[in-house]
C-alpha cells in the first residue's frame, strides 16, 4: 500500500446534523426523478423519447449530439413527464414519473475488448460517472487516460462510507475494476480508507495499487491523490470514478442491467433525523428529505455542505443530500458604509495552519491561492492546479469564511487555461 498524503493532514469540519436513525441503507425510490447535465457542463443532446412516453429502467433517454455514442439512461422505469432544453438543445432537465412494476432495459454484455467496454459504458449511461482532469466533466468517448483513480473513500462531512456501499457487491467491484483497468495502460490507483483489501492482489495482472487515506478531509477527495501520485497535465488526462460506480459496472457486465440504486446520506441542520438510503440516481431531493425536515424555511443541496449546490435532483456524481436552514437575507447596510469598506478587490487571504491543512498539506497552499487570486495561470499550473476541481478547494473556501471565492477563481483559471493552452 502506498502512503497516504501526510500523517494527520486535513481538517474535520463540524457541520451540524442529527444522528442517523432508521434502517441502514433502506431502499427509498422517489416518485419523481430528474436527468440533468453534470454540474458546469452544457451538453447538447438529442432526445430519444418524447414527453408522455414510457421508458424502462436503464433505457437510453437522450444522447449527446456531439458524441452520439454517449447516452443518458432512465434511472427507473418511468413515464417521461417533461423535457426542458436550453437554447441550442442543451440539456436542462428531463423529469420522469415512476411507473411501478416497469421493465428494466437489457444492455448487451459483450465487452471483451476495451472498445466494446467503452461502447457498453457509453450506451448504459455509466460514462457520466467518469470524471476527467484537467478541467473536469466526463471524458471524450475516445480519450485514453494516463491513469485511473478509483475512490473508495470519502471524507466530506456526513458522506456515506463507500465500504458500506460496496457491502454485498465485492465480486462486482472486482469485476468492474478489472474491466476498467483495460481502459488505460497507465497506473490504476484505488484510494481506500483503512481496513481490509477490497480486491485480490493479482487482479488485472497486479497493475492496481492501493493508496491509504486518513479520516480527515480532504484526504478522501480524488484531486489530492491525483496530485500526489499521478498529476494530471494537458496531455496526460487522469480519470477518477467512485468505487460504487465501479461495482455498478461490474453488475452491468454480469447481468446487462444498470444498477438501480446508490447509497445516499441525507444530513444537515434543517433535519429532525438523518438517514442513509439506497435511492436512484437523479432522485427527487424533496422526496428524500420531506419526512425528515424540521419546520421552517430551508434549502436543499445536492452534495455536501462544503461543495454541494442548490438543486431539485440528485446530481450525477453526488451521494449526499444536505438540508440547511435558509439564512435570513442580511440586513441592508447603509450605502455610505458599504461604499467605504467594500473595495473591488476581495479581502486578502492570511496564511495560517488552517489554510495549509485545508489543502491537505499537499501543496504550497498560499502560493496557489495567490496565483489564483492574481490570475497567474502559469504559476498555478506549476503548483498543480490541473489536478484540482472545485470540490478540492471547497474546504479552503469554507475555512476562509467564503471570502476568498476560490472555487470561482479556480474555475476561471481552468477555463482560461483550456482556452489558451489546451486548444
Amino acid at each position, binding site marked *: 500500500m502506498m502512503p497516504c498524503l501526510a500523517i494527520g493532514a486535513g481538517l474535520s469540519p463540524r457541520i451540524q446534523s442529527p444522528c442517523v436513525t432508521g434502517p441502514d441503507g433502506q431502499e427509498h425510490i422517489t416518485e419523481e426523478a430528474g436527468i440533468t447535465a453534470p454540474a458546469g457542463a452544457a451538453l447538447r443532446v438529442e432526445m430519444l423519447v418524447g414527453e408522455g412516453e414510457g421508458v424502462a429502467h436503464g433505457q437510453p433517454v437522450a444522447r449527446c449530439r456531439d458524441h452520439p455514442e454517449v447516452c443518458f439512461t432512465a434511472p427507473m422505469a418511468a413515464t417521461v413527464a417533461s423535457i426542458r432544453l436550453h437554447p441550442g438543445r442543451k440539456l436542462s432537465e428531463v423529469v420522469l414519473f415512476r411507473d411501478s412494476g416497469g421493465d428494466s432495459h437489457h444492455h448487451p454484455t459483450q465487452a471483451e475488448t476495451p472498445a466494446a467496454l467503452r461502447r457498453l459504458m457509453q450506451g448504459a449511461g455509466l460514462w457520466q460517472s467518469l470524471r476527467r482532469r484537467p478541467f473536469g466533466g466526463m471524458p471524450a468517448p475516445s480519450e485514453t487516460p494516463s491513469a485511473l483513480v478509483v475512490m473508495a473513500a470519502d471524507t466530506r462531512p456526513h458522506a456515506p462510507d463507500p465500504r458500506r456501499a460496496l457491502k454485498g457487491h465485492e465480486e462486482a467491484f472486482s469485476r468492474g475494476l478489472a474491466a476498467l483497468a483495460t481502459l488505460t495502460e497507465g497506473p490504476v490507483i484505488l484510494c481506500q480508507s483503512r481496513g481490509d483489501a477490497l480486491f485480490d492482489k493479482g487482479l488485472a495482472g497486479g497493475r492496481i495499487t492501493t493508496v491509504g487515506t486518513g479520516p480527515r478531509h480532504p484526504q478522501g477527495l480524488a484531486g489530492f491523490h491525483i496530485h500526489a501520485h499521478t498529476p494530471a497535465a494537458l496531455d496526460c488526462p487522469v480519470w477518477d470514478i467512485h468505487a460504487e460506480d465501479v461495482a455498478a459496472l461490474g453488475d452491468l457486465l454480469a447481468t446487462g442491467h444498470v444498477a438501480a440504486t446508490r447509497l445516499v446520506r441525507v444530513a444537515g441542520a434543517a433535519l429532525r433525523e438523518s438517514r442513509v438510503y439506497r435511492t436512484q440516481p437523479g432522485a427527487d431531493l424533496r422526496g428524500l428529505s420531506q419526512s425528515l425536515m424540521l419546520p421552517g424555511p430551508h434549502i436543499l443541496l445536492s452534495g455536501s455542505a462544503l461543495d454541494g449546490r442548490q438543486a431539485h435532483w440528485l446530481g450525477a456524481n453526488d451521494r449526499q443530500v444536505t438540508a440547511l436552514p435558509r439564512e435570513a437575507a442580511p440586513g441592508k447596510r447603509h450605502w455610505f458604509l458599504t461604499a467605504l469598506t467594500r473595495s473591488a478587490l476581495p479581502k486578502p487571504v492570511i496564511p495560517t*495552519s488552517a489554510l495549509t491543512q485545508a489543502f491537505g498539506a499537499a*501543496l504550497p497552499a*498560499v502560493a496557489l491561492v495567490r496565483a489564483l487570486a492574481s490570475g497567474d495561470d502559469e504559476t498555478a499550473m506549476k503548483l498543480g492546479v490541473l489536478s484540482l476541481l472545485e470540490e478540492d478547494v471547497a474546504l479552503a473556501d469554507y*475555512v476562509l*469564511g467564503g471570502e476568498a471565492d476560490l472555487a470561482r477563481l479556480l474555475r476561471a483559471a481552468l477555463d482560461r487555461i483550456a482556452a489558451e493552452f489546451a486548444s
Partner: protein
Amino acid sequence: MTKGLWDRETVATMLMAAYAPLAIVWLWFDGVDGAARLVLALVISGGWHLVFMLARAQPPSLAGAISALAVAMLAPEELGLIRLTLGISFGAVMGELIFGGWGRNVVNPATVTLSFLGFGFPAFGWPEFVQPVIWAVLPAAAIGVATGVMPAAVIAGAAVVTGLAAAAGLPLVPVLPAAGIVLVLLVCDPVTSAATALGRWLNGAFFGGLVCLFAYGWDGAAPLQMAVAAALLSSLAAPLFDEAAIEMWHLRRRRRLGRS
C-alpha cells in the same frame, strides 16, 4: 453556505489574543509611559486606516493595533511626539496601507517604523526589558503556534541556529531576550514571513543567523537594534526563501513523478 472562521479579522483577533500576555506584562511594568505610547500609536495608526478607508474603500483591520503594540514596545525611548508620529505614519502608510492593507503588504509596518526610527534618529537609546516581559514571550508564542496563526517553523529555525551558535561559544546572552521579543512580535507575522514549510525554516534560520552575525560583529549597537535590523532583512528575504522552497518542491516532484 456554512462558513468557517479563518477570515482576515479572525486571524488578527487570534494574533491579538496571542500577544495579550506580552502586552499585559509589559504594560504592568512600563506603566503610564508605555500606555501613553500605545495610545499614541493606536490613534495615529487608526487615523491612517481611516484615511485609507475614506480614500480607497480599504476596510480597516485589527492588525493595525498589533503593529501599534509592537511600535509602542520596541520604539527608541524619549523620541518625542513629532518623531514618533512621523515614524508610525511612515510605517503604517509605506509599509502596509499603500499595498492594499494587511494581507497584501510585503514588510511588517512595525518593522518599517522601527527601522525608520532607528536609522533616522540614531542618537536615541533603545529600550530594555525586565525579565517578566521577556518570559511573557513564551505564552505569546505558544498561543500563536497552537492556534496556527504564527508559523512554528520560523521560531524553530531561529531557535536551532541561535542554539547552535550559543553552543559554539558566541556571546549571544545579551542579545537573546531582545531577539526573542522581536521574533514573536515582528518576524512571526504570518503575512510577511515565508509561507512554505521549508521557506519558514529558512526564514527563521536566516533571522537567527543575522542576530548571531550582528552580535558578533556590530560593535556599539543595542541588542534591540540588532534584532530589528535582522527582522527587516529577513522579512525582505522571505519571498526569496519561498521561491527557493517552491522551486525545490517542483524539482522533487518532477524527479519523482516526471511532471508537476
